[in-house]
């Protein structure tokens, strides 16, 4: 007997399961019919509850449900929903559709049916619900952003759950941020203090200025002491994270400026250490590098549009070689005639810089160049608080690192590098040992110029590119050389980082001018103490 009973039980369970499945499908249909009936009822409370259920359709019934709900809400708003005789249809130019199924309702005369009344408050709820549903159903980001802006103003049909589901579904990062903030402000408006505290804590998890503002706004009208305490604590936590993020962001932008400075100053330092020549056209070689990158971009756009995304990478050799070639010509045509008159090289290189600026101005024009920004130099990675590690700065740092490693290997491991070091230390002795010092000068000048070209490439996604762009960098680059000492790679790095950081730290507080003044005064005081720079080669000169 027990056995049989069990069998019966199993049979019953299976039957109930089957029944449940069978009922479940029409349940949605039943819900839809209920909702439509409520809307048609003309009872304000019932209509309002129906609209809230419609607004939540995107959470419960998936995108198909949301599409249906949107159709109903829009029909209700547009007064094309007609009710009567237990029947509800949507009047369309192609004939009426049954509201609950959206199937054609043949033989229904819409003229006998009337639209349910829509009063002002109901219209507001319906508009809000419609915008909520657009958040779930619109294809384009712009349309969803527009809907998000709308629900921010008209929150009648909005709940935190709906927004949580919308955030979950959202693919656009910026829009997701907007929706999260909106959800935070909704949560913070909860009538229950316990919920409000929970909301504050949940929001504080994501320490951004936006969330801090949301909490601060919510606390402005707050009376509950526990909520206020929780809010203060949360804001203090966010403030700490934000402050840390700000410090990191400043250091980061200083590091990217320093990379550009380093590239320009490294070339200057190599040339000065070797030949005692300061190249006043170094800034214009930066400009040449940036223009070479632009020409590479245009050439690729014309010839191989598929590779356009990689033009910045392809431009690395182009920028280097273009600037190196200009440098080589400078050395051969002018600088080598002035080897025992370093002061005259200042004038000569200045004349060359004047010539380069004006030649570019006349041939290409003096407007800022437009650079295409591939995906890898736009956007960034959020790190902490409002600190975003932007890719364009990362690119500059990466180019500088790459160039630094290449130069170290070149100077330490190659024959050319050995020659450069030998001639820097003692020109006459190096010559006597059989090194072709003139050729070494020429190659080193080309190398130093090429490094400036790389600086131009590295800064092209960051700064304006125009014929006069180089003049702004030249003074800072010299200060790096003076500070870092001649012919010292480590010195150039330390000095570039130092001057780069001073610039970005002082600039927001006292302005760009103060930063430059301070750097210059520091350098003047500094050379009192160490005239040969921080990392001068040992020995008497």
């Amino acid at each position, binding site marked *: 007997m027990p056995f049989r009973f069990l069998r019966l039980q199993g049979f019953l369970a299976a039957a109930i399961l089957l029944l449940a499945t069978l009922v479940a499908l029409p349940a949605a249909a039943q819900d839809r019919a209920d909702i439509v009936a409520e809307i048609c009822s003309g009872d304000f409370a019932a209509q309002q509850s129906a609209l809230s259920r419609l607004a939540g359709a995107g959470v419960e019934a998936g995108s198909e449900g949301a599409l249906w709900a949107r159709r109903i809400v829009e029909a209700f708003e547009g007064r094309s929903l007609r009710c009567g005789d237990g029947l509800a249809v949507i009047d369309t130019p192609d004939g009426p559709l049954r509201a609950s199924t959206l199937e054609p309702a043949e033989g229904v005369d819409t003229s006998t049916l009337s639209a349910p009344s829509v009063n002002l408050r109901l219209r507001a709820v319906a508009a809000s619900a419609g915008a909520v549903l657009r958040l779930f159903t619109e294809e384009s980001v712009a349309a969803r952003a527009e809907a998000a802006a709308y629900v921010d103003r008209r929150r009648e049909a909005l709940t935190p759950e709906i927004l949580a589901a919308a955030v979950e579904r959202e693919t656009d990062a910026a829009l997701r941020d907007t929706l999260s903030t909106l959800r935070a402000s909704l949560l913070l408006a909860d009538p229950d203090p316990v919920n409000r505290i929970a909301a504050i804590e949940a929001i504080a998890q994501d320490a951004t200025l936006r969330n801090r503002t949301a909490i601060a706004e919510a606390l402005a009208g707050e009376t509950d002491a526990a909520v206020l305490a929780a809010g203060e604590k949360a804001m203090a936590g966010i403030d700490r994270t934000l402050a840390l993020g700000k410090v990191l962001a400043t250091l980061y932008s200083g590091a990217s400026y320093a990379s550009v400075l380093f590239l320009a100053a490294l070339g200057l330092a190599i040339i000065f250490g070797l030949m*005692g020549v300061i190249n006043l056209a170094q800034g214009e070689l930066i400009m040449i590098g940036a223009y070479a990158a632009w020409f590479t971009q245009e050439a690729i756009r014309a010839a191989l549009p598929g590779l356009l995304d990689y033009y910045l990478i392809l431009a690395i050799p182009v920028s280097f070689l273009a600037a190196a070639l200009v440098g080589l010509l400078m050395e051969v045509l002018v600088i080598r005639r002035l080897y025992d*008159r370093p002061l*005259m090289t*200042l004038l000569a290189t200045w*004349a060359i810089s004047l010539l380069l600026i*004006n030649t570019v101005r006349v041939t290409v024009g003096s407007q800022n160049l437009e650079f295409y920004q591939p995906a890898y130099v736009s956007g960034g990675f959020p790190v902490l608080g409002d600190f975003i590690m932007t890719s364009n700065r990362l690119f500059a740092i990466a180019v500088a690192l790459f160039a630094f490693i290449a130069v170290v290997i070149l100077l330490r491991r190659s024959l050319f590098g050995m020659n450069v070091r030998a001639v820097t230390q003692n020109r006459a002795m190096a010559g006597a040992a059989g090194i072709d010092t003139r050729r070494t000068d020429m190659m080193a000048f080309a190398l130093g110029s090429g490094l400036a070209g790389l600086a131009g490439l590295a800064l092209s996604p960051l700064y304006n590119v125009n014929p006069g762009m180089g003049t702004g960098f030249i003074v800072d680059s010299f200060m790096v050389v003076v500070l870092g000492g001649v012919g010292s790679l480590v010195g150039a790095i330390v000095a570039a980082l130092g001057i780069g950081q001073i610039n970005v730290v002082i600039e927001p507080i006292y302005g760009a001018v103060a930063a430059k003044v301070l750097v210059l005064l520091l350098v003047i005081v500094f*050379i*009192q103490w160490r005239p040969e720079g921080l990392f001068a080669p040992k020995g008497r000169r």
Partner: protein
Amino acid sequence: MAKIQSDARVDRPLLFRIVAICLLALIVAVPLLGGPLSGSALGLTPYLANIIGQIATFALLALALDLIWGFGGILSLGHGLFFAMGGYLIAMHMLKAGYVYGGVTPDIMTFMGWTELPAYWFGFESFPYAFVLILLVPGLVAFLYGWMSFRSRVSGVYFAIITQALTYVAMLLMYRNDTGFGGNNGMTGFSTLLGVPVGAPGMVTGLATASLVVLLLAFLACGALMRSPFGRLLIAIRDDEARLRFLGYDTLWPKLAAWCLSGVLAAIAGALYVPQVGIINPRLLAPEVSIEIAVWVALGGRGALSGAVIGAIIISALKFWLTGFVPEAWPFILAGVVLVVVTLLPNGLLDLKPQRLLAPLRRNRKPAPEPAE
């Protein structure tokens, strides 16, 4: 690095006398042709007189730079700083005097919304006070910077670059509106100078003549100074500073004295220049302006005062003439002149001696030495 100066480049008695006599002739001619004879066929228009006056101040500026570069071997790429200092100080005097005695409200007061001028404008209505400051302020700045640099033996290219940076920073400072010197608009709208209205008939020729007189006096005084034992010492320092130190000379003070004198002369040139152009703004502090001064000296020939004056006159006259109808071409011409001078004429136009012209391809031209690095 012992280099013996057999070439008597320092003293070019003939050229020196020719330049002095020409200046004297101009001092007589300008007031005469610009004043009573201005209507005659040879007469000077006020425009031309004004340009002669401006060029005279440029020549004075070049003289100042040659003193320190040609004779001291110290290149300054920042003489625009001293020039602009003189200019700003005289502009402050003229505005304040116009405000106090003439009741003309300076533009910067309206622009900045001031009811009175800042405290450091105190006393500027008095010309003697302003004049003393024109000598004192640039002299003090030159002294401080020179003392710090020469004491730690910063020289050559380093020194030149830092003077350039100094000027650049001064330009950035002056471009700010809140420093009280007129910001990027600078200062203009001068009404009187020494009690005479700026628009008075003799003003232009008077200023031009005054500039020429100051130039001639400075030229003669500097010539005498460079022939004196002090000048000889300075030249010796240029040629081999280390040796002089070993011989027991203190090289710091002669260099510093020449440097300060050069700065003050440049400031006087600026103070003469600004009343003639009627405006001063921070563009005078741009690094290009200072480098152009060095170009004048390099073209005329370093180490010869007459060369500096001639170089300044040639290039500025060329610039006034050319920028009138081909302004775009001027940078190319200037760059070309510099490149030709530095590669082909190491001592500037002074290389164009008759025998050199006969044998232009001779290789053994000896450039004036620079201090050992």
